[in-house]
Structures are given as C-alpha cells and as structure tokens.
C-alpha cells in the first residue's frame, strides 16, 4: 500500500467521516436496524447480529430499467433485447437476491454438501438407471451384451458429471477481485496525483486488502451500533455499551497506521456477477428438467413400451409393469436426492458464497477426525487429481498446473503436519507423560514387539497346541564305498547296500533308551518322540551274497 501526504490523508478522513455520517443518518431509519430492537441487537455477538443491520441500500437499477431502455437506443429491436437482458439480470428481485453490499451476504460454503449429493446421484444412476428407465420389449445391442452399460445411461451419467463440473466452475469463479480492483484503481489515481510515490500492482498486498475489508465492515457495525446508542439516548434509555468506544478507537488507530481513502466503505461493495447469476439460472434449468424427466419422460417412455399408452392402464396383465412414479421407487429416490440438491443449492444462492474459501471440507478444524477425513480423502484414487485440475482450470492464477499441484501438495502436507503437531503445541513444556500412556503405548508396544520377535518360535515349537507330533513314517539306508585312485581326489564310488524297507517302527522303550544313554551322550529332548526303526537286512536291489 502506498502512503500519502498527511494533509491529503486528513482531508480524506474528514470527508469520509462527514459522508458516512450523512449517509447513515439518512439511510438507517429505525425500522431497518435489527428490527428496531436495539437492546437485543447489542446483546448479540458480532457473528450473531442480523444481516438486516446493513440492509439500508434501496434498489436502484430496477427503478431505472425503463429510463435506461428508452435512452440507450431508439431501435425497437435493440430496446426489446435490452429490456429482456435487463429484466433477466437487473430486477428488484435480483437486487434483493444479490444485494450489492457484500456484508448483506457474508456467505456460507455449502459446496461440499452439493458435491456429495451429486456424487450420490451419480452412484445411484450407475446402479439403478436401468430401473428408472426400463427397456421392456425393445431389444437393443446392450441386451445381447449385458456386460456393457446402456448408452443412454452413460450419457445421463456424463451429463450429471457435467453439472458437477459446472457447479465447481461457478463455485471457483466468484469474482471478488472486483473489490480489489477498485482499490488498485484508487491507488493508481493517487499515484498520478502524488508524484514521488510509485508502487506496482504486483506489490498489491492481499492481506492488507482483506484487513481493510474487515475494517470497513467493522466500521459499519460500529457506526450502526453508535446510531442505536444515540437512538437509545433519545429514548432516554441508558444502556451499557461496553467496549464499543474502545473498538471504535482501535479502528481509528488502525486507520492512522494505514492508508484511508474515501473509497474504503466502497471496498465492501461488490456487484453480483455473471457466475452467481448463472448458478441461479442453472438451478431454474435443473428444476424444470428434473421434474420433466422424472414425472413425464421416464414414465411415459416406459409406459409406451409396455402398454402403447403414455399412461398406466391397471389390469391384471400389465399393472405390475407400469412405470408411474409412485410405482417405481427408483424414480422416487432419484427425485428426493435431487430435491436435497435443490435445497442446498437454493440455500447457497440465498446466502451467497464466503469471501474466502475454507479449502478442503476436512480443513475446518485440526481435530483427529478432520485429519482422518482428510487422509481418507487423499487416499481415494484420482479425487485429489480431479480437484487439482478443476481448481486450476477455473481459478485465476499465475501458477502453471505443475506449480499448482506442488502448491496443493504442500498445502495438504502442512495441514496434516498442523493436525499432528496440535498435541505438541498444547503440551506443556516439561510436563511428564501420564502413566496411562506409558502403560498403553510403552508396555503395550513392548509386548507386541516381543510377540512379533519371539512369536514364530512359539508357533513352530511343541508349545503350539495345534502342532501334531511329526513321527517318522519311513526310513532308508545306503552304504557306499569310495576308493580313491589318486591323491588328487579322483575316485571310484560303488554302492554296496541300499534299502528303503523297514521291518518295524515303534516308540523306543525305556530299556533301550537307557542302553543308548550308557553308550553315548543323549540330549533328552522330546523323549516321548524317540522312535526305533529296524530296517530290512536285504538290499532292495541286486543281491550278491558274499
């Protein structure tokens, strides 16, 4: 922000105060200030105050439509076109729906709910479209190849996706930059008058602009409450307005530190733009289309296929196949889902969009649930990519797509880090960890690690109750003689005896075990598993008695 000379600053400030005072005195009749209940208005928190506090601007354009049409052109055709255009864009209805003061529509971000309902509608159409639009007797190529989707179904799903994309475009392309442009233009005009100070638009400080915007809305509020206070005094009511003067003082101090221009109040002014108007007409269009296809197109099309008549003829043969809405639950659910969408969308138009986006729906807070939701959202294949590409496409930005991807990636990482670090921020420095954490994470984790390390040993030992004794079921014996021919290791190898036939396999007796124990050192491991095998004395192969 550029600075200006002290004299000019004081002049502007004086002019501003004078003009605001005059404007508010005229424009704030009692009946328009919070329903004339000043005490109630003051008792409310700032965020709870009625929007009607600011509703002081009378419609202007709608009153002047005829004047504009008559004076703009003399051509009747152009006049008709102009009248239609102004009627569709500038009427008293639109001025009340899209007020020109931003504070009148602070905005609620309902896009997430709209998108969720739209996705549910798409899923519903994928699964149940063939029931909504049944093909009873017309065989098509899809009937012969049931693994493919119906082409009309695919078309409908693509149209539904188009509506989602259009909604996203409308959501992203709201044009609050108009406000900033006004301010920049003011600066530029100041620059022309005030040689020696120059600042490029590139140095435009968005945060300060936002502060100015907040400042102006705050000033409006204070002035409003100030008027209410004056009105109370006139009524003889002495009420406590604690903090009001201090707040005004704060704002005045803030003014002294920053540039004050005569247009600061206008910074809160915005025009309803084409995108919000487009959203309004999209809502109207969808209302008509959905009602037509739900109550007329689907039932009539199916009924013509079944009964040759567009309406239902209830009889024993065809009554069950009638595709009237009340007979087809999929049409009812489809209609209800779209009603949800219409309600949310209507609220979105009614309340407007907030000036700043919250970002992702899960980013409203840094609770563990938000972190889990966000990580779950990131884990859904291609959702993040779709969002990134659509956001980049419909947002005014100087970043290229790859920078935008990097930007979103960093943003996501920072949010997860913020959620993860919340505990450490809140944790008092030097405070010992509680015992239950030691017991759960410490002892529990240690136990799990030991089980992981030593578990396989237990699993493959005789401690395993599922393990059965693995007794020997057969045996063999081979004798081979190797006669070395040279000292280098060359040798002849001849098999002397070989048998795989045993005469007896049995558990070893205690007597024999003792006998063996006397002759050799035995490790008494699994004594009960010891077996004695008596092999045949005859070789299995070629016998040659010696």
């Amino acid at each position: 922000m550029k600075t200006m000379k002290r004299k000019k600053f004081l002049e502007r400030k004086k002019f501003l105060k004078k003009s605001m005072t005059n404007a508010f005195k005229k424009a704030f009749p009692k009946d328009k200030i919070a329903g004339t209940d000043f005490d109630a208005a003051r008792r409310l928190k700032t965020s709870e105050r009625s929007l009607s506090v600011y509703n002081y601007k009378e419609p202007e354009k709608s009153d002047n439509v005829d004047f504009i049409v008559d004076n703009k052109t003399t051509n009747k055709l152009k006049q008709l076109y102009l009248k239609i255009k102004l009627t569709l864009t500038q009427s008293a209805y639109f001025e009340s729906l899209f007020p020109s003061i931003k504070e009148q529509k602070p905005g609620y971000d309902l896009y997430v709910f709209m998108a969720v309902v739209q996705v549910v509608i798409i899923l519903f159409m994928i699964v149940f479209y063939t029931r909504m639009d049944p093909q009873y007797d017309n065989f098509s190529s899809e009937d012969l190849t049931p693994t493919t989707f119906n082409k009309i179904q695919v078309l409908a799903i693509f149209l539904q996706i188009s509506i989602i994309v259009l909604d996203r475009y409308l959501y992203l392309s709201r044009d609050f930059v108009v406000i900033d442009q006004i301010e920049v233009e003011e600066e530029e005009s100041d620059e022309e008058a005030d040689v020696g100070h120059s600042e490029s638009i590139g140095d435009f400080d968005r945060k300060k602009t936002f502060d100015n915007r907040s400042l102006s809305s705050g000033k409006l509020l204070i002035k409003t409450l100030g008027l209410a206070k004056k009105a109370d005094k006139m009524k003889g009511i002495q009420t406590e307005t604690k903090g009001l003067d201090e707040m005004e003082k704060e704002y005045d101090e803030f003014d002294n530190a920053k540039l004050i221009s005569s247009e600061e109040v206008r910074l809160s002014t915005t025009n309803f733009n084409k995108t919000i108007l487009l959203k309004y007409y999209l809502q109207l269009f969808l209302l008509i289309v959905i009602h037509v296809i739900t109550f007329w197109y689907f039932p009539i099309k199916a009924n013509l296929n079944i009964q040759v008549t567009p309406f239902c003829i209830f009889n024993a043969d065809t009554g069950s196949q009638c595709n009237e809405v009340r007979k087809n639950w999929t049409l009812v659910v489809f209609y209800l889902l779209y009603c949800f969408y219409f309600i949310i969308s209507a609220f979105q138009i009614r309340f407007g969009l907030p000036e700043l986006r919250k970002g992702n729906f899960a980013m409203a807070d840094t609770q563990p649930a938000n972190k889990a939701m966000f990580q779950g959202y990131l884990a859904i294949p291609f959702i993040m990519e779709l969002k990134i590409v659509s956001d980049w496409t419909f947002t005014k930005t100087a970043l290229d797509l790859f920078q935008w991807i990097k930007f979103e990636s960093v943003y996501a990482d920072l949010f997860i880090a913020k959620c993860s670090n919340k505990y450490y921020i809140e944790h008092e420095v030097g405070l010992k960890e509680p015992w239950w954490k030691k017991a759960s994470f410490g002892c529990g984790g240690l136990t799990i690690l030991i089980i992981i390390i030593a578990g396989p040993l237990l699993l493959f030992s005789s401690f395993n109750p599922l393990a059965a004794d693995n007794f020997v079921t057969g045996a063999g014996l081979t004798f081979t003689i190797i006669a070395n021919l040279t000292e280098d290791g060359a040798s002849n190898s001849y098999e002397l005896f070989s048998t795989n036939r045993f005469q007896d396999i049995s558990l070893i007796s205690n007597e024999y075990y003792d006998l063996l124990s006397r002759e050799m050192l035995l490790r008494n491991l699994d004594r009960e598993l010891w077996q004695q095998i008596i092999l045949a004395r005859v070789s299995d192969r070629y016998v040659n008695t010696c």
Partner: protein
Amino acid sequence: MLTLVNLYSTWSISPPTQQEIFEKVLNSEDDDPLGINLVISYAFDRPEPAGQQRVNKELQIIDITDPGVVYRQQVFKFF
C-alpha cells in the same frame, strides 16, 4: 549301532571290477594315503512339512585304512 556283517549287498558291478575292489580293500595298508572311504547315508520319511517329507542325511565319511576307526575289521571281514 551299525552291523555290516551278514548284510546282503547290492554289488551290481561286474565281477572283474568287484575283484579289483576286493583286492584294493584287502591289500590296503593302514594309513594308506589314497584311503578306502565308506559312506553311510540314511533317510527317513515324515508327514510334515508337506514339501519335504523325505530327509536325507549322510554320516561322516569313514576311512577304513585309518587304524583309529572302530569296527574297521568288520568291514574287511565283509569283503
């Protein structure tokens, strides 16, 4: 304990070769540098593990020309 006496051998080799081996074993001297080695291997079968039900083991090779080998005279007697 293994007893080699009175076993019925395989000896599928030709008689001249048998004779040569006999002579070689019988004429061998103690601590003969070429050595006469006897290899004893055994095997056993078991149900588990399914992929390796037969296990083959080989005992340490015995040089019967080594005077320290116990029962080596029985081997000579066998021949």
